[in-house]
């Protein structure tokens, strides 16, 4: 956005296609890597299969009967995949609010001048507090504390709302620090240059610093979101039935942990694409920097 046209680095032939490890890809390399992969996993599989309790573990965790039944639910137990929809919803809603709140906190923390000291103090206090308190405690305080106050609006929300608020408060503290790192990584000369061109302090932040800062921190941001995706499971302590809780209900009724395996599988299905996407962004960023350095 802040780049003049043409400054956007274009991945060029050889330097662009050179990924990690691709140098050794030749006939022999492929042979060695596939052999070592097969041996590696075969040793692990063998160790697990030969363990004295392996059949018991297989039955207690991987019995297809229980995997299938917990996935779709029974008369008395909710379906794990149905409950997982709630995790996805909470994740998506929380993510939007986190991106906004965290950015506000990060910017406020960076406002210079003695007049703004109280604002900076609040921003620092906020990040210190919510990064330090375990999420589960925040959930309890908000989920059981706010309704207990008996206020009109704040005490009559659903548990899912309280849960999402707790997630937003805690994760915004982390993400604000990620943003701040990004903002700090943009060299001061950029702001100085923007100011000398007549941009106001706010305009310099908005049009010069932030676009560069945000782009740099996208990989760590996504990393936090993978964590967020998993932590939606904690909201179950307030009562809503999400995937981990549905799995817990099934496990307790049937005395079989297959339902947890199913829940884990569902979380993985969502987080792995996110993780690969992050990897790709990191690689693209590195490529660009290398290209930039060569210029």
């Amino acid at each position: 956005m802040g780049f003049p046209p043409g400054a956007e680095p274009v991945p060029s032939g050889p330097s662009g296609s050179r990924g990690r490890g691709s140098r050794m890809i030749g006939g022999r390399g492929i042979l060695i890597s596939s052999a070592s992969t097969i041996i590696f996993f075969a040793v692990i599989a063998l160790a697990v299969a030969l363990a004295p309790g392996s059949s018991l573990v297989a039955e207690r965790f991987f019995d297809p009967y229980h995997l299938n039944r917990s996935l779709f639910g029974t008369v008395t137990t909710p379906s794990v995949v149905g409950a997982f929809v709630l995790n996805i919803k909470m994740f998506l809603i929380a993510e939007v609010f986190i991106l906004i709140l965290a950015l506000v906190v990060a910017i406020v923390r960076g406002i210079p001048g003695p007049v703004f000291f109280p604002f900076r103090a609040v921003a620092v206090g906020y990040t210190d507090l919510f990064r330090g308190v375990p999420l589960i405690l925040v959930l309890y305080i908000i989920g059981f504390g706010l309704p207990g106050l008996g206020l009109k609006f704040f005490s009559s929300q659903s548990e899912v709302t309280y849960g999402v608020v707790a997630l937003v408060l805690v994760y915004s503290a982390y993400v604000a620090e990620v943003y701040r790192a990004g903002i700090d990584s943009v060299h001061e000369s950029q702001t100085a240059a923007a100011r000398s061109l007549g941009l106001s302090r706010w305009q310099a932040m908005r049009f010069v610093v932030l676009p560069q800062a945000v782009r740099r921190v996208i990989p760590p941001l996504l990393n936090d979101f993978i964590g967020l995706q998993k932590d939606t499971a904690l909201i179950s302590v307030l009562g809503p039935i999400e995937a981990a809780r549905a799995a817990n209900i099934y496990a307790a009724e049937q005395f079989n942990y297959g339902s947890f395996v199913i829940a884990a599988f569902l979380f993985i299905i969502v987080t792995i694409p996110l993780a690969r996407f992050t990897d790709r962004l990191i690689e693209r960023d590195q490529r660009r920097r290398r290209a930039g350095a060569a210029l």
Partner: protein
Amino acid sequence: MRKLLVLTASLVLLAGCAEEPSNQPSSSGGGGDKDPCAAKSLSTVAKGTLTVGTDRPAFEPWFKGSPKAYSGYEGEVATEVAKRLKLPIKWVVEPFNKAYAPGPKDWDFDINQITITEERERAVDFSDGYFENNQGVLALEGTPVAEAKSISDLEDYQFGAQVGTTSLAFINSTIQPTAEAKVFDTTNDAVSALKNSQIDALVTDVVTTVYLRDFVVKKSLVLGQYPKTEQFGMVFEEDNPLVECVNGALQKMKSDGTLEKLEQKFLQQYLEVPTLE
């Protein structure tokens, strides 16, 4: 609930009458050298000690006092079983969710208000039932749900239960409420939700509901109990031979009235609740 195992032993308990002396060899008294339940020949986790697991916190009136020597109904039932096996008892902490994990256990049996069901019996072994449990419904005085007289009056309300309890299955299969029940890690959390009016009523075993009414939740009432003919049993690792000996001791405790005495001592005040139709 149809799936629940109904144990004939419960009839003995209810009738309070003496059954003919157990024909099992597990007599507590004068076992000969061949008695597999004699203290010396029992293979317990810790040699010469009966190690018993339960969750922590353990709730009254099931457990009372310090974890070093629990009293309370379940505490004393287990202690009495140990006494009849002529072994000292030692308590260890075992979270409910871990009681059915595969692998070696650090206890001989776990006693924690666990209902015997067919599904669970596929994974663990249960002792005979030592208590016949009914479901109880707790609500706050003056709320609409407090007017309910029968199960069919309950379907439009928001229920809560502790995860892993048969109470949740009871809500889903018998009450069948229109709103999905909320599920909490512990009964304490469900109580918080009830006090905050996040749920209209909470369901747990009737003894616990009366305890909550009398000692924990002000201005609350127990709507009633629902007979489910379910039994609490002790959990053993599958194929543990010790279960026979414990059953022998339980059988004796039933026939000589010990179990009933303990029930009267600890639970009587909790069982006088009207029945929900």
